[in-house]
């Protein structure tokens, strides 16, 4: 590959039109394109195409069973002008994302950093302990047992025993408790793939860079972290950030499993829930596509912002 590139040499950008240049580059790297083709095909069919389809559908009144009619931007108008629940869902989603996103991100980073200092054998064990909640499927349902509304639920039983409450609290059916509980559960499950990639990133850092930095006048561990560790593992940071944004915006299934659908008084109703509410129980695929498009835009811009922010790391 690299040899082939060397013999032909990259096409110089200035000499030809942009299209022409791209084509030439593609031809040069055709083996690479060939190898990425299977994935690209699936990616286009199952990810890119649906995104475009949902943009188109969001302009119709499609109801899953009948032929859709074009309605222009009616769905968007209604979404922003005439749907209080959507505004509530946006608010919930943002609260949710703003708390769980950064907190889980920083948590993952800090925990990874600490764990990295441990001896390898212990590190392996501790990594598993922290990673376990996110791989063990529906393990979060243990929270449902813990915070069961029954008077025999664990937390209720303890509180009742010590006389702190007189009747059982309906944890996941009480608007006051739903959101905080869901955030706690989200944080508990959040040490997932991002956390693993951080650990991997930390492992790749060349020890000699720290020594060189020490010579150059790094004074403490924090400076080491900021000037050496983080910039070196920027790709992993980016990967983790994207994951944690998508997770915190798309955190719907766990809430439904814990609080039922919809959550009491829409207390933990996120954009994801709103989407499946309209798509599933109301058969308004057009409208729910509009919601999906909005969610897509929000996530996309959040990613751009994060990317900008991450480029400032170490400066």
């Amino acid at each position, binding site marked *: 590959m690299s040899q082939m590139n060397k013999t032909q040499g990259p096409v110089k950008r200035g000499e030809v039109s942009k299209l022409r240049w791209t084509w030439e580059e593609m031809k040069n790297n055709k083996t690479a394109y060939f190898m990425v083709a299977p994935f690209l095909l699936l990616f286009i069919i199952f990810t890119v195409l649906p995104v475009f389809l949902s943009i188109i559908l969001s302009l119709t009144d499609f109801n899953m*069973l*009948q032929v859709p009619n074009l309605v222009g931007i009616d769905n968007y108008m209604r979404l922003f002008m005439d749907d209080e629940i959507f505004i509530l869902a946006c608010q919930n989603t943002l609260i949710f994302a703003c708390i769980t996103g950064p907190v889980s991100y920083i948590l993952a980073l800090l925990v990874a950093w600490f764990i990295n200092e441990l001896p390898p054998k212990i590190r392996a064990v501790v990594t598993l302990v922290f990673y376990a909640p996110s791989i063990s499927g529906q393990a979060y349902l243990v929270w449902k047992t813990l915070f069961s509304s029954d*008077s025999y639920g664990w937390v209720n039983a303890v509180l009742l025993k010590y006389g702190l409450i007189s009747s*059982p609290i309906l944890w996941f059916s009480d608007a006051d408790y739903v959101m905080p509980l869901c955030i706690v559960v989200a944080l508990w499950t959040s040490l997932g793939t991002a956390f693993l990639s951080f650990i991997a990133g930390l492992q790749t850092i060349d020890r000699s860079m720290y020594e060189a930095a020490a010579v150059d006048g790094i004074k403490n561990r924090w400076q080491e972290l900021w000037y050496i560790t983080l910039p070196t593992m920027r790709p992993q940071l980016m990967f983790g950030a994207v994951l944690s944004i998508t997770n915190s915006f798309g955190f719907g299934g766990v809430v439904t499993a814990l609080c039922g659908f919809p959550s*009491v*008084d829409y207390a933990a109703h996120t954009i994801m829930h709103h989407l499946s509410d309209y798509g599933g129980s109301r058969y308004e695929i057009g409208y729910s596509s509009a919601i999906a498009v909005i969610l897509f835009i929000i996530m996309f811009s959040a990613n751009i912002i994060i990317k900008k922010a991450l480029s400032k790391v170490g400066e």
Partner: protein
Amino acid sequence: MKNKLFQKVLCLILSVTLLLGSMGLTVSATSLKYDPNERNPYKATTLEEMQSLVGTLPYAEYSANNAGVKPGPYVLKLDVTNFTEATNSEIKVVKDSEVVSNAITQDGSNWVDFDYDANAGSSIYLPSTGSVTWSLKVGENAEGISEAGLYYIKIEYFSCITPESSVSPIERGFLINGKIPFSEVASISLDKTWTFDYISSETTDAPGEPDSYDVDYVWGNGHDSYQKIVTSVVDGKKTVTTYTLSQDIIGNSMSPGAEATPSWSTYYLQDETGYHSGNFAFNLIEGDHQITFRAERDPVIIKSIEFVPAENAEETKSYEEYLKEHESLADKDASSGDIIFIEAEFPDAVSDSSVSPSNDNTSPVNSPVVSGTQLYNVIGETGFSSIGQWASYKFKVTDSGFYNLGMRFKQSVLQGMFVCRTLKLSGGEYGEGGTATVPFDEAYNLKFDYSDNWQSSYVTDGEQVFRFYFEEGVEYTMYLECSLGTLKEYIQAAENALLEVNAAYLRILQLTGTDPDENSDSYNFMEVMPDVLITILEQAVALEQAHKSLKEICGTNGQHIATLETIYTLFDKVGSKNGENIAANLSTLKSYLGTLGTWINDSKSSTVMVDSIVVAPMKVVDGELKEDESKLPRVEANFFESIWFEIVAFFSSFFIDYDKMGVTAEIEENIEHIDVWLASGRDQSQIWRTMIDAQGGFTDKTGVSVALKLVTGGTLLPSILSRKGPDVYLGLGSAEVINYAIRDAVLGVNGLEPRFTDEQNAIFTTERYTYKNADGTFETTLTPIDGKEVSFTTLPFNKLIVDEYGEEIFSKAALDTVMISPGIEKDENGKITALPAVCYGLPRTMQFAMMFYRMDVLADLGQEVPESWDDLLSILPVLQANNMQIGVSYVSALDFMIYQEGGNMWKYTDTDRYDAAYAGAAIDIDSEVALAAFDFTCRLYSDYSFPVSYDAANRFRTGEMPILIGSYADLYNQLVVYATEIAGLWEFCSLPGSYREETGEFNYNSLAQVTATIILNGCESRGNLLPAWQFMQWETAAEQSAEFGNRIVAIMGPSAKYETANLNAIDDLSWTASEKEAIMNQMDHMSSIVNYPGSYIISRYVSFAFLDAVNNDANAIDAMRSYIGAINSEIERKRAEFGLWVPTEEEPVPPEKETYKPPVQQ
């Protein structure tokens, strides 16, 4: 427009019929007056009845009280034809078959396979309801000998099969002098005999052929079945009996249908739970006795009831005696006889239809086995585990002498324990003419040890291998019967401990509540209830003993046995130290009681899977009889065989079309067939397939093939979208039906007839269908095909829902849930009128809430079963004083309370007969009535502290929640398998009623949750409309619903009760008489929430309001009111989407129904 007019006329007819139907309901309702003694014509069990039932002694105590009473002197016979009292006029004396058929059927049809000649003499026919009483005089005979004493009771009965019969055993309550002598005979069950329809027999003359007996196992034509063929020649007659297990087109075995066969049996009253071996001994003192049989289930014909002196029962002998008896027989050696190999999956008869063959593919040595297919090769995997169930096998030996019985079996359920079977034999010396005997005492306890692998061994009691003497040429039958064997005393100890400690737990609960204060030493258990502590300690010791001996017998402390250890350790801890540990361990105690209950259930279900049985001849070697282990079936395959078996299974999975599961013949595309989808289990789908294909089944009657496909729940929506949907879909929830209907995906089923006539020639070119037009209705019949006289009458919708006497076939409430107006019409003035409502499906299942109650707890507390909410709240303080609760599912209570109070979810519904344009346009929860009902429901939880969230079955089981309201079939199905130790202590009845002042009546209404059978829209363009409609009628008819319900119970056991929506089918399902009465009564008191566009939003906001009221002590009415706007605006938005009438400022929804006049005249 013509069609529309016709539809309107039809709807008018329909509405009139419905109105008439509902008038029938109203008439029966008006007869209820507010008389505290007689509110509801249906009475739940009264306190007195409950107390007498619960207060009855167990047999153990009864027999202890009768210790020292001598057996009676001789047999006393009861003249069954001479009864003194009968509460059912159908109870008749029958002398021969002619009289029986005359006595029973008014319409002249013959219902019995009544083989009476063989047993001439007078008998008495007892139908499935009512009771009969005989008088028995016990005095002194001529010689001055007193007849008083202990007696066994022997009954000779005929299990007749009539239209009243169900799939369950015959059940009778037994009373002496109006009282149940001991609790075990409160319900005695008389077994029926079941045979599989796979057996066919043919006898021909074969003069000159010597007597012979051959058994062959062969594959059927082209591997389409596995057969056992028995050829026997006796006295020049040759009989070929063929047992066929047929297969579907991908090679899986099909369930053989089991049929109850009417037969004579003799039965001694004895313990069915398996704890007391031998018969019950009744103590009869001198004087007149009234002997009563109270019908619980199924008709029976009784020929004789005899009181046999208690010592005179069939004598049993020990194995030693048995051997000695046969020692004198010269020919002990049987070595010239053949080994008889019996495939266990071919029983000749079984005691219960759930005892049926099944598949096991865990070993390549199983016989028969084909890798990758589910071929029936074993018996006993499921459904063959309750005490008393048996399977029987016939065999003949070719040389007289001693034989061993060997089996290849697998017992991998009870870890570290063993399972017992009783072996009975009949034929020759063991009893002629259907009487089976246990050859020797030890045969009660044949042990099957635990192992993860298959085992092969001769039957043994763990100490010695048994030998059996068989004579050449005699046809023997062996019965393998589930029994507790030697386990019974341990299980009984555990059950006793459970009952005693649970009672102790409830008493502690009364003192401390569910959350005792751990730090308080003020409870003083030792002073307040020393007996409770003693009981717990006693039971700890009893359990410890049981555990110790179990461990000894089994040789290990396996996981199953070790459970007992943890339990008695806790009992010991709780009971000792003057009860100091009670407070800290109360909730653990409760969960351990649950564990103990499960342990008992597990231990009682004696599951052992049998692949094959051998009757192996023994040989005399050096003057000694020897077992020959080499004659046992091969136990396990070698490594390479196993690997190859798995490899074949893996690769064949790529080639098997699992859609063809249960399909017996390929349906070619060009053959006229309909596609039917069913989202359910495999068993359910196979039952429907069998019923469709059976003789006289749907295909037979209509000539239409059915491609039945088992699908998963969410498949329907995408299939409609991609235009690949079925013609008929079985069991779609009513809300979904309406969702699909308003989006044109479902066809309305009333007024389909014009479509047939218009397009009849185009669609049905086969000339199979002729149309009769009588009285303005259409009847579709099928002319004979290929000379076969088959016919299926297709009824119009209005004849389907109400029978000829004007009685409902489907509850109006159920039909309402699948009806909606298909749209609107504008006249020339721009006035909008809604089209008359159309029915979009036929109700298939109907669930509704009923009230379950623990009779023992209520009897203990001296409380009647509450009939109204006032009653319920008046006994609440008594329950709460004892730390008990009432469990009401708030989701259903919120809804049914509104209807009980006379409210409605909607301001107008189609069925109100108001202009349908307003129907479903606004909710009516903001009416005074509905708000009051809502407020009352909320107060149940906030003021009366009903628990919002609870584990219903578990608390009902412990008795903490003696009254429970929930879906009847779900709860029943759960309790009947989960809480077997309280069997007979609970019942269910209709919901408590609300008193309505305006009518002066109580309203007991429950709400119907319906699933329906529907026709999808694409059906018509495929030309399948008529067959689809016919299938739908056939499938929801009473006959098929009942047959399906009974078949599924037969296969899956009593916990698979089918909640049919066909009111006429309930009678034929296997509920007991009192259960049927309760269900039918609730079905008479039924409402439903009609589905309209936007329906989904109501329950959501109602439960938000409820939770707000309960969580935050908000005013319930204000909370509900705050959501009314949101609900209505969502409904209006949804209506606008479908172009329906929407209230505006100029024309709001009229506020009062009474003053409202429809603006548009039709």
